[in-house]
């Protein structure tokens, strides 16, 4: 059986790099994308088994991408872990917690995250 494919989308290349090192060390194959639009294209090219998605990103944010994926029957089944640095209860105009809840992501992890929590979340969704 081939390795599971996890796609990580975050606008911080350091974070993408580190998370992929962690996941690769656990035997996953990792794809990288650096904003919502790139993430969308990466998904079209290869359907990930789990999508790790940052919220605040340029061009297309994580909420938006997640909403679109969940609205499309073809991509609805991809489990999504949202990573967010947005404080849970501070309403900001663009990234409200309520909106986060409404996008139907499978998991919601606040930043800063540690390796163990992240790996655990990915494993749970496979």
């Amino acid at each position, binding site marked *: 059986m081939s390795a599971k494919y996890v796609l990580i989308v975050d606008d911080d290349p*350091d974070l993408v790099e580190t998370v992929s090192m962690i996941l690769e060390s656990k035997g996953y194959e990792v794809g990288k994308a650096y904003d919502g639009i790139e993430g969308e294209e990466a998904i079209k090219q290869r359907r990930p088994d789990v999508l790790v998605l940052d919220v*605040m990103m340029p061009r297309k944010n994580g909420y938006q991408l997640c909403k679109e994926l969940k609205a499309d029957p073809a991509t609805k089944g991809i489990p999504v872990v949202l990573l967010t640095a947005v404080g849970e209860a501070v309403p900001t105009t663009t990234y409200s917690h309520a909106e986060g809840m409404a996008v139907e992501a499978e998991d919601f992890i606040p930043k800063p995250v540690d390796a163990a929590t992240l790996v655990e979340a990915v494993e749970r969704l496979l």
Partner: protein
Amino acid sequence: MEEQTTVLVVDDEKVIRDGCTLLLQPEGYLVATAASGREALDLMGAQPVNVVLCDLKMPGMGALEVLEDAGSLFPDVPIIIITGHGKVADAVECMKKGAYDFVTKPFRVDHLTLAIKRALEKQRLERETKRLQEEAARNLYTLAMEQSRMHTIVNCMADGVLVTNRNLEVVLCNPTFMQLLGLSGPLPQPGPLPAYLNEQSFLDAIGELCDKAESEPAKCLSQEICRGRVHLRAMSAPFFGPDEKMLGTVTVFHDITAFKELDAMKNEFVHMVSHELRSPMTAIKLQHEVILDGLAGEVTNKQRELLSRAQGKIQGLIELINESLDIAKIEAGYRQLELLPLQMGEVLREVVELLRVKAEDQKVTLNLSIPPDLPPVRADRRSMEEVFINLVSNAINYSPDGGAVAISGFSHGEYVEVRVADTGIGIEPEEIPKIFDKFYRVKHPRTRQIIGTGLGLALVKGIVDAHRGTVEVESQLGVGSTFRVFLPR
């Protein structure tokens, strides 16, 4: 004792002077005499005289001349003319000149005393009238001055003032009020309150003040009113007439927009900064983990030690960010408190469980004693956990090796008290008032190694205040500190 009345008898005939003296003295009057008009006027200038009996015809200065001079010098002394029979026409002439009355010679004692009594009565009434007139004028003057002064004070105030009568009609407002509410006059006075300030919560509050003013002890209502971008603090109180009847209400409006804006800016700033810090912190933390896990190659022991310490520092920074966000949340009122009946015993057991490892690491014992019948409080579970995690971990941090932290619960009627007592280094008395301030940290050589944000206790106080509770601290240097949290049931 009533002052004695002095009657001045003016006559050139000694017989008349003596006769009058003999008649009047037994009646209780003091009698002074003068043989001429000149002498009479001199005497009136030298001593108090209540009434004058004056002969009509005298050599030199006659009664007419006396009347003229006395009328201008002693206007309130009545003069009674004594006149011989058949000289009535002259006497009438004197009356025209201001004499009060006349008696004809030869006179009877009762006529004389009657005339004197009437004259005195007239004098008394005149003096009383004059006194009342003066008093009224003085009162009017004071009133006008008071009114003008009040008017100027009210119109010069930088705060808005609004006065209603008891029918909730506006009877007075100052220019600042009009300006704060963006009103352009003139509005009717008295006019309906909603025409001035149509804010339901305010109308309700004023209505309640009017309804309850006479039945309850007078109180001052304070509320915040938001009109567009203007935030006002309104202080309202009823006012009463001399008969204790409520006459209306006075409200003073203070503009707090600048404070509010500053506060919102501060919270927004804290939020932005926290967010911008949190993202890179995540990357740094994960990078360290990757290296420590050996994913980036072999790690020497020295490198591992340095990186572990760096990890500790990063954790401290992350806590600082989280706590400043929490404070911003509480202060901005974003944090929703779910006030449900909560067993503090349960919460405290969890907190102790969570901190047991930390306590063991620092060789501190945790003792929890909660009576099983401790009544529940109305509180938000997560917030309470935060409060006691902060207090207990502080207690652990500031305890020496082998120290003990006692967590206990007590019930005081409407309140439940939770006490966190340590056997730590204690707090200097002058530090105590400051420890709940944001970013305040006790400076002490022995606390230098303790990592903290200086926000923990500010957060504790913020949360307890939001629950309408109080937090107190008692401390003795070298003996320990006790934090008491009182929460309403």
